[in-house]
């Protein structure tokens, strides 16, 4: 290897053509081939010489990158005038063009409008050099502070978990810390293992964090989750967190404590968001917990009222995300998960809740999975739904379940079908292909198509943006749903696109929030203008305007109020009943995460009641149109 490389280095010289080109450029035509060869060898040698000297300057400059100034200095060393004008810090953008058998690299000069230069504000003055001190080590152990790198870099965590045989060359961090504590005097050199002792500070931190995560104060929870998602020093605590979550889910599923399950899932989300953690080692605890939250028969005390569907959706998205991140050929997570979902879906005795979870879990895995696994079963599933919806009433719960499954199927399948099927959407055709769900699918597909077309037009339309990276949603819930028909009105569905678009997607809300966190407003209340309240009322209007709210100016304001209407979008005018207040954490910084700023939710036309009122159609088709 090295040998070959060296030989290459030996033989590399500039092509004689360059010599000719350079000679021509200074007015010497007709350079002989011999002189070209001689020149190119000489020039190559000199260039190598200068490069070697320049390397010296790089070393003494304590850098890893060779800069143009190093070359200048090397030239100076040889008593050659340096080349001026190459001080640019940036990459010099040579452009390449070929044609007519010639290849050219050239420096592109743009035309610059003088007025542009004059009018552009001056760039920021570069900051002056400053000195900052921090503790790299205290009595031999490195504190986990932001100034220090994460104790175990993510790459190493990954290597550790995927290739356990290659683990930690001795003498790296852990080895050092073990010896530092004087326990391992090197008598027997065991393979170093990461110690699982937590320092007092870490124990305190763990206690605080876990309490805040499952406690009642939403602001504290937001802070705790933020900390989990960003803190670099959590590696040591990861096993604790994962056990906490898995045990928590185990207990709370039995207890049907929906709120706690949601909190725990949000913790999972935060852990996954932390850029310094690699969760692969703990998936055996986390995945069962997440899957439980997707497919469990019962997640809440009152299945007819509580919105456990949102939890299932959220957990399904988490599952999809972890499949995407951690699935490898060795652990086969995705295929195993898919198998699990499919198996229980195919089972006739499966309850509607589980059925919903399976479908949601599969659907989140992407259009390919939908195409191969869900679409072929639409007919069967349609028949089953039909049996519940139109058959003799068995129980209200089954009906709700079937209803949700139906909307879920419609939501996920419509966009896939829209891409698969050719244009004319004939209802009968759909009926024969998909059975009971056919006609509804047909209308959804058509909506999806129009929406896609509209969005294509609206690419450049100005959008209002919701700017905070992690909106926390609080759901107000009346608990009385009699007037609104069969469905519970407490659904808040964060559009699925939100999860994909933003780093920290909206999270499902807790069903019974602390009273301080929401505002209930009458439908006609006009006082909301100062509060920037968005009311989403459910109605049929489906004009796909992308709307969101800008909030950078307000520190902590109740922002979004979502209302979910009752019946599945059958009646056009229906009084609003509920509001969901979205409280924004004060730290919301608007400009930092451009990705999260736009929520292309197809939220329908704003209504007029003083505050910005967004009406949201409850009919599932709307959401299917959202691109992601």
């Amino acid at each position, binding site marked *: 290897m090295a040998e070959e490389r060296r030989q290459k280095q030996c033989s590399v010289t500039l092509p004689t053509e360059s010599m000719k080109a350079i000679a021509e450029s200074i007015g010497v035509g007709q350079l002989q081939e011999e002189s070209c060869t001689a020149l190119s060898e000489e020039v190559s*040698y000199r260039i190598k010489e200068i490069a070697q000297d320049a390397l010296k300057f790089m070393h003494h400059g304590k850098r*890893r990158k060779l800069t143009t100034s190093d070359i200048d200095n090397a030239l100076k*060393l040889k008593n050659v005038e340096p080349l001026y004008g190459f001080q640019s810090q940036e990459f010099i953008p040579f452009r390449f063009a070929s044609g007519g058998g010639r290849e050219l690299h050239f420096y592109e000069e743009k035309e610059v409008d003088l007025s542009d230069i004059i009018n552009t504000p001056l760039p920021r003055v570069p900051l002056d050099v400053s000195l900052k001190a*921090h503790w790299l*080590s205290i*009595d031999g152990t490195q504190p986990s502070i932001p*100034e220090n*790198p994460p104790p175990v870099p993510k790459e190493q965590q990954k290597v550790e978990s995927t290739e356990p045989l290659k683990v930690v060359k001795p003498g790296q961090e852990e080895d050092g810390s073990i010896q530092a504590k004087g326990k391992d005097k090197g008598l027997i050199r065991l393979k170093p293992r990461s110690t699982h002792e937590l320092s007092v500070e870490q124990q305190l931190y763990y206690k605080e964090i876990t309490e805040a995560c499952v406690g009642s104060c939403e602001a504290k929870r937001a802070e705790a989750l933020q900390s989990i998602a960003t803190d670099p020093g959590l590696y040591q605590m990861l096993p604790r967190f994962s056990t906490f979550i898995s045990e928590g889910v185990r207990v709370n599923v039995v207890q049907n404590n929906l709120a706690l399950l949601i909190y725990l899932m949000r913790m999972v989300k935060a852990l996954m968001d932390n850029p310094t953690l690699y969760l692969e080692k703990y998936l055996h605890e986390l995945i069962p917990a997440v899957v439980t939250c997707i497919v469990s028969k019962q997640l809440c005390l009152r299945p007819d009222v509580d919105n456990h569907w949102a939890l299932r959706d959220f957990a399904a998205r988490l599952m999809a995300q972890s499949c995407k991140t951690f699935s490898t050929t060795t652990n086969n997570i995705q295929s195993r998960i898919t198998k699990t979902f499919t198996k229980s879906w195919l089972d006739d005795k499966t309850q509607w809740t589980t059925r919903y979870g399976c479908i949601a879990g599969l659907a989140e895995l992407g259009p390919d999975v939908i195409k191969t696994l869900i679409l072929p079963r639409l007919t069967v599933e349609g028949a089953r739904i039909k049996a519940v919806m139109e058959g003799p009433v068995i129980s209200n719960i089954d009906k709700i379940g079937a209803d949700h499954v139906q909307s879920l199927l419609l939501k996920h399948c419509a966009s896939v079908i829209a891409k698969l099927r050719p244009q004319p959407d004939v209802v009968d055709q759909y009926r024969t292909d998909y059975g009971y769900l056919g006609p509804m699918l047909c209308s959804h597909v058509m909506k999806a198509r129009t929406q896609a077309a509209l969005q294509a037009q609206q690419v450049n339309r100005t959008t209002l943006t919701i700017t905070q990276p992690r909106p926390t949603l609080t759901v107000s819930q009346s608990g009385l749903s009699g007037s609104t028909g069969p469905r519970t009105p407490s659904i808040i569905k964060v559009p699925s696109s939100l999860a994909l678009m933003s780093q920290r997607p909206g999270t499902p809300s807790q069903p019974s929030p602390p009273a301080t966190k929401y505002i209930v407003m009458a439908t006609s209340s006009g006082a909301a203008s100062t509060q920037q309240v968005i009311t989403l009322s459910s109605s049929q209007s489906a004009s796909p305007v992308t709307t969101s709210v800008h909030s950078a100016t307000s520190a902590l304001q109740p922002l979004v109020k979502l209302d979910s209407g009752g019946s599945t979008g059958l009646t056009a005018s229906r009084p609003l009943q509920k509001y969901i207040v979205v409280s924004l954490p004060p730290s919301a910084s608007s400009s930092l995460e451009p990705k999260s700023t736009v929520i292309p939710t197809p939220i329908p036309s704003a209504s007029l009641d003083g505050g910005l009122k967004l009406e949201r159609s409850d009919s599932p088709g709307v959401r299917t149109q959202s691109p992601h």
Partner: protein
Amino acid sequence: MRCHDFPKLELPVFSSAHAHFICKMAAVQGGLVDAVEEKTIKSEPVADATANNSANDARAPSSSPGSGVSPGVNKPAAGAAEDQQTLLAVLQFLRKNNLSESVEILRREAGLPEDSLDQKGGDSTGTGLGGPEADGRTDAGSLLSRVTVSSSAPLKSGKVAVAEDQPDVNVVLSAYSQQGDPALYEVYYSGLKKFIETVLDCHRAELSQVFYPLFVHMYLELVYNNHENKAKAFFEKFSGDQECYYQDDLRVLCSLTKKEHMRGNETLLDFRTSKFVLRISRDSYQLLKRHLQERQNNQIWNIIQEHLYIDIFDGMPRSKGQIDAMSGSLAGEAKREANKAKVYYGLLKEPEIELPLDDEDEEAENEEGKPKKKKPKKDNMGSKSKKQDPNAPSQTRIPLPELKDSDKLDKIMNMKEATKRIRLGPDNLPSICFYSFLNAYQGLTAVDLTDDSSLIAGGFADSTVRVWSVTPKKLRKVKSAADLNMIDKESDDVLERIMDEKTASESKILYGHSGPVYGISFSPDRNYLLSSSEDGTIRLWSLQTFTCLVGYKGHNYPVWDTQFSPHGYYFVSGGHDRVARLWATDHYQPLRMFSGHLADITCTRFHPNSNYVVTGSSDRTIRLWDVLNGNCVRIFTGHKGPIHALAFSPNGKFLASGATDGRVLLWDIGHGLMVGELKGHTDTIYSLRFSRDSEILASGSMDNTVRLWDATKAFDLETDDFTAATGHIHLQDNSQELLLGSYMTKSTPVIHLHFTRRNLLLAAGGYNP
């Protein structure tokens, strides 16, 4: 003794006229030194001594060569003929440039007859290099005479014309002109290779050392004789066989394919002018010799005779590991006699000043100080016993500046802090405080901290030097002369009054250099700061006025490093010109020039007793120089890359060195031996530091880590007499046991380390986001 000539002057701080004068003189002096002459100086010891007179920058004011300790300590006796050869080259050069006076002087000094130059010069140009041939004949013995006869016949015809136009370089290179059939080179080489592969295992490793120098010289011969394609083929065929640590040199070599390139290529001149030193046991050598004689392999035998210095020892052949540990330098290993000179590595006795003040202070602090009173006395006993250290140089071996009152105060502070010092050890690691330079934009090139850790200075690529105070005490300038006049000089707080309160700030910027600042060093009394730069100057700055006092010129090329002596007054510098210079702050010319390195001097350090200076170089050797007489007393080889960090242990006995190869090597100065190797870093090591009591060695590297090593254990080994005598060491591979901790920074290379007086480790580097 010569040393009494040193004036014991302190540099007047405010005398700008003085500084001016010095600058002017230095400029004149700098102009005189011709680059070519400098090169000659550094390449040959004898030429060094003589040419110094003519070049007007002699080693010491009153020195004449040979007056002190014999200058020939590190010079092989066998090289006499070769030296004469070089002298002739110098003479020729001088004559060519019409420096007839210098010719005269040099000729007289060297004791050459008047006509020798003409005769020899004519010889070398006219009859095709009879000179070197004849010289070679005298010491090569009967075998060689046979060789020369047979090989000199064909070459005489070809070489005449070329040699005429460039007498100086050609004389140096001319040895390459003896030439056999170029086609046979590969055969010769592979023949030898086959032979060495078949010898007994115990000899194979030793004999394999021959490969690299042979390869280089054969290649150069081919190039020199214009067999470009043959040379390339030869290179391609055998370069892969060479040890990986020669790769950098091979890269230089492979770019060199034409005779024209050889002129002015310094690496090449090094190969020619310095013999490659190999250490081979007698048995192995006999084996090689017999083989070559049997095969009549004259070509190779010639090269071995002329370009290689084989240091033969009696005893067991060395193992591959032992050889690898010591090899890697540009010119082979150090000769054994090079490390034989006595080195006074002990510490100087501390002056006894602390007692009265200490007592006073303690009484002030606590009244029932009766039992404590005894303690400082005991400490004193300890320092008295140090006086008997047989390895310490005499107190006056090098004249040192007298202690001022402020120095005494500082020493007392030091003592006091020392009593509060934490005892470090494997179970008690130091805390590390890291100073990150933010917004440096990759421009931080050097850092230094004062001994009492109150100031930190950074050298930057934008030619500035910045000084920060890391204590709450701000940096203040002295008032202007006019304001100073108004001060009541009798008042007690006059020292406080002269400071200008308006200028107080946390940091000051020093402008003056015109190139990146590569080396920086505080004086022990914190009044001065030295900086060395790419612009070839070393500047002395006052930390009272924050202005430049002197620019020391002498290095004509970038100065890579500089450091103050631990006693102040002297400082050492080294740079691209391969000469390390010893200066005193009040002399504009260097007091000593240490020449011998074959490539850039990359770092320089003072021994704790100020009697020695150590330099590390790109030629991958470390040399220890005696300040008294300018001799090189130790040569350490073993690094495989340019050396970028050096540190003496506080007791002066040991030296640690770090290089681009990411290894730390430990050396016993007294015995001149390598005693340890610390592997673990993955990139260049830029800083090394021992804790105040030598228990811990800290290393900082480009790989963004600080590592702590158990120094006590590393040096705790029994060197029996045999190893000391032969210089063979057997290194254990125990780096992992010695590594006590490794601390990663956040993309911040560690370029400076410092233990405070209480053994807190301070580290510094520039953050590269």
